[in-house]
């Protein structure tokens, strides 16, 4: 179970880096072409529907990244393998960026669709709180000077946040049924046309490639950071 990070692994990641960057750019270009030119406008929402192609992938990856983050923190506590800590720390900031992007694009999309920039419903509120969980994770690590301690504590915090998210989702849902009796017509379950599915799929793939690329760059960064912490404290 104990996976040690060897030098040739890092060399491999290093050599894969340009290809990954190229693939990401390529996927984004294709995705942009499909989402802006090739797909038809939605018959209700018109062209504002196109924001979905960047909003939905970033929301997915915001959630997925936090799941990976919390999962690797749990695995770190179980196996004591430092690799999981490095993974958690390298993925956190990418997740934060995706969360912020999904919030921004979501509210820009909300203006033409709902008529308002922001709706206090469960999904948006828990996304906002997710953003603050990322911030807490990242900045707590920076605030504690003993870095080994910092990793442990911020990992514990990430797991608590993971428990908190469903609780918040549930309570905001409950709150909505009490305080806002369907004042805003939400998007009904979208029956997405195939012509919309293709750009969405390509954009998702592109965002995934971006996630992998930047996470691997940050992986190397975090490894070097760890080594520097070690040598300077000797």
């Amino acid at each position, binding site marked *: 179970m104990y996976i040690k990070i060897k030098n040739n692994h890092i060399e491999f990641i290093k050599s894969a880096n340009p290809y990954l960057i190229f693939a990401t750019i390529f996927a984004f270009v294709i995705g942009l072409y499909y989402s802006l030119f090739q797909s038809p406008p939605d018959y209700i929402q018109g062209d504002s529907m196109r924001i979905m192609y960047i909003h939905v992938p970033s929301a997915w990856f915001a959630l997925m990244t936090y799941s990976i983050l919390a999962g690797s923190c749990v695995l770190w506590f179980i196996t004591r393998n430092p690799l999981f800590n490095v993974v958690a720390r390298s993925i956190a900031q990418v997740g934060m960026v995706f969360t912020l992007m999904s919030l921004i694009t979501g509210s820009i999309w909300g203006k033409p669709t709902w008529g308002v920039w922001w709706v206090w419903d469960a999904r948006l509120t828990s996304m906002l*709180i997710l953003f*603050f*969980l990322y*911030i*807490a994770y990242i*900045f*707590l690590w920076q*605030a*504690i*000077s*003993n870095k080994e*301690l*910092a990793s*442990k*504590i911020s990992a*514990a*915090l990430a797991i*608590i*946040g993971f*428990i*908190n998210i469903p*609780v*918040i989702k549930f*309570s*905001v849902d*409950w*709150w909505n049924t*009490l305080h806002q009796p369907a004042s805003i017509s939400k998007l009904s379950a979208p029956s997405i046309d195939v012509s919309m599915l293709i750009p969405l799929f390509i954009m998702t793939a592109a965002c995934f490639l971006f996630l992998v690329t930047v996470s691997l760059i940050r992986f190397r960064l975090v490894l070097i950071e760890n080594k520097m912490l070690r040598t300077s404290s000797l």
Partner: protein
Amino acid sequence: MSNLIKRDLLLSFYSSANFFFTVSFFILILMLIPFAFGTQTEQLKVLFRGVVWIALALSIIITVDRIYNDDYEDGNLDIIMQKNKTTEYLIISKYITHWFIYCLPLLVILPVLSFLFYLDYLETVQIFINLFIGSFGMVFIANFVSALTLGARRTIFLKAIIMIPLFVPFIIFGSDAGSWPILLALSMLSFVISIYVTAYGLRLYGE
């Protein structure tokens, strides 16, 4: 365990300024409602139910450093941990004293304040019950955040960022009159999590 409670109570008695500060802070936040929103009776009633929770959350946040940090920084936590080999007793007595010193005064002053905001007896009792149960849950959360962030000094803003998302469920349910069973469930959940996490934080601190 009883020694620690006695000592913490005496300490808060000696530095009784702290105690008056939190109560004054609580009252002053609520006092801002009429200034900010006007003095219409119906509006004040509605706002009071919500803002009383915000005031409670803020007064707990500003006291979070006093739970473990003060004792950690001057070294008293060493003695406390040496004297209490079973960390759970230590943690539970800290819960009790923190609630007793910083939440009980707020609850005592609450009926007076709610009459100032034109609420009748029944409504006051409902708010009181909710606040009573919810304040325990918030104290549990404040305790584990305090224990976890012992290594990060003087970062009250960061602690607030960590704590406010955890307070959200309490505030959502707190402002509804009949939701005390859910608050009780939330408090119990936070107790279970808190006692593990606080013990973990204190153990890490010891190292």
